[in-house]
């Protein structure tokens, strides 16, 4: 293609080309994406971020909440339906589990021991409940600590069924 461009000195040709590119660049400075784009992208980001948050939750996030509800339900049931206890003898059965470090004490069985022994993947979950419930179960409670919550651990089956409870303090 003979354009007459060849007659220009290379330096002049380069400078004029650069000048035209500068003009284009200056005109492009006015070109911006539609404002609605930001709104739709922010909406999409919120959906995406919500999805990520849900995916990032630990698998057993519901266990502490379930432990609390189960504890309260069991305690309420025990208050309303007090077991007929023999005059002498324990109200509950107790058992221990092998612990690597300090043993915090035995578990109080809420299910028959042989049923608990057959549970392959029991999970221990920390929980808290009002100390006055101990008294309702017939356990000793220091009067000055009635207002304090009780720290405890609950043993759950793989299906989420409460198997035993252990009072920590």
């Amino acid at each position: 293609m003979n354009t007459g461009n060849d007659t220009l000195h290379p330096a002049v040709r380069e400078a004029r080309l650069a000048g035209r590119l500068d003009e284009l660049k200056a005109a492009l400075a006015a070109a911006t994406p539609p404002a609605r784009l930001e709104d739709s992208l922010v909406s999409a980001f919120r959906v995406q971020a919500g999805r990520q948050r849900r995916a990032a939750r630990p698998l057993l996030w519901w266990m502490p909440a379930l432990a609390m509800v189960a504890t309260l339900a069991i305690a309420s049931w025990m208050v309303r339906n007090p077991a007929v206890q023999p005059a002498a003898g324990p109200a509950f059965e107790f058992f221990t589990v092998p612990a690597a470090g300090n043993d915090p004490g035995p578990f109080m069985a809420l299910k028959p021991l042989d049923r608990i022994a057959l549970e392959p993947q029991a999970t221990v979950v920390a929980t808290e409940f009002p100390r006055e419930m101990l008294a309702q179960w017939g356990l000793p409670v220091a009067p000055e600590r009635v207002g304090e919550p009780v720290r405890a651990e609950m043993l759950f089956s793989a299906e989420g069924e409460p198997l035993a409870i252990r009072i920590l303090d």
Partner: protein
Amino acid sequence: MPPWNMQPELTLFARMRQGDEEAFVELYRRYKDAVYRFALLRTGSAAQAADVTQETFLHLMTRPEQYDPARGCVAAWLCGVARNLARRETRSREDAMDPDDLAEGAPGLTELVVADGPAERLLASETAEQVRAALAAIAPHYRDVLILCELSDLSYAEAAQVCGIDIGTVRSRLSRGRAQLADRLSGLGLMQGPGRAKEAS
């Protein structure tokens, strides 16, 4: 391009990955114009450029792990994403061409590229619009490098990252692209008159 402190944008990027909406908005506002202008020049259509921009930032939010800070800045990565999106419709034609065959004067090339070029008026300035149309009519491989290096202020290394080629190829394509563009502008009578200030001085 002067040395660039990437830490602020990397911090924003990390916050965005953790679901921080403000960080995403900041990244969008920082790079939207560069991506849109690249897409505008690449597609020749305001509507398509908006679509490409939207898809590019959707890619940013859904596939952030694809960004590798060791390979360049966020702007270069986003331009690369935008380029791939803009190429979708013309991929078969562009991939069928060997860049060496795209040299100026290749038979049939001008008609092919011009026939595919945009007719939409995008810029207010008449001269700038003519330059844009001339740029849109040159071979795609040269056009990309020209847009990135001359109009998007990316370094040769970043343009190489965007196009997936080495820096030497960027230089040669830039040289050929400038020559093609100069020829087209000359044909339009746009190589007369003053250039940059240094010529005038």
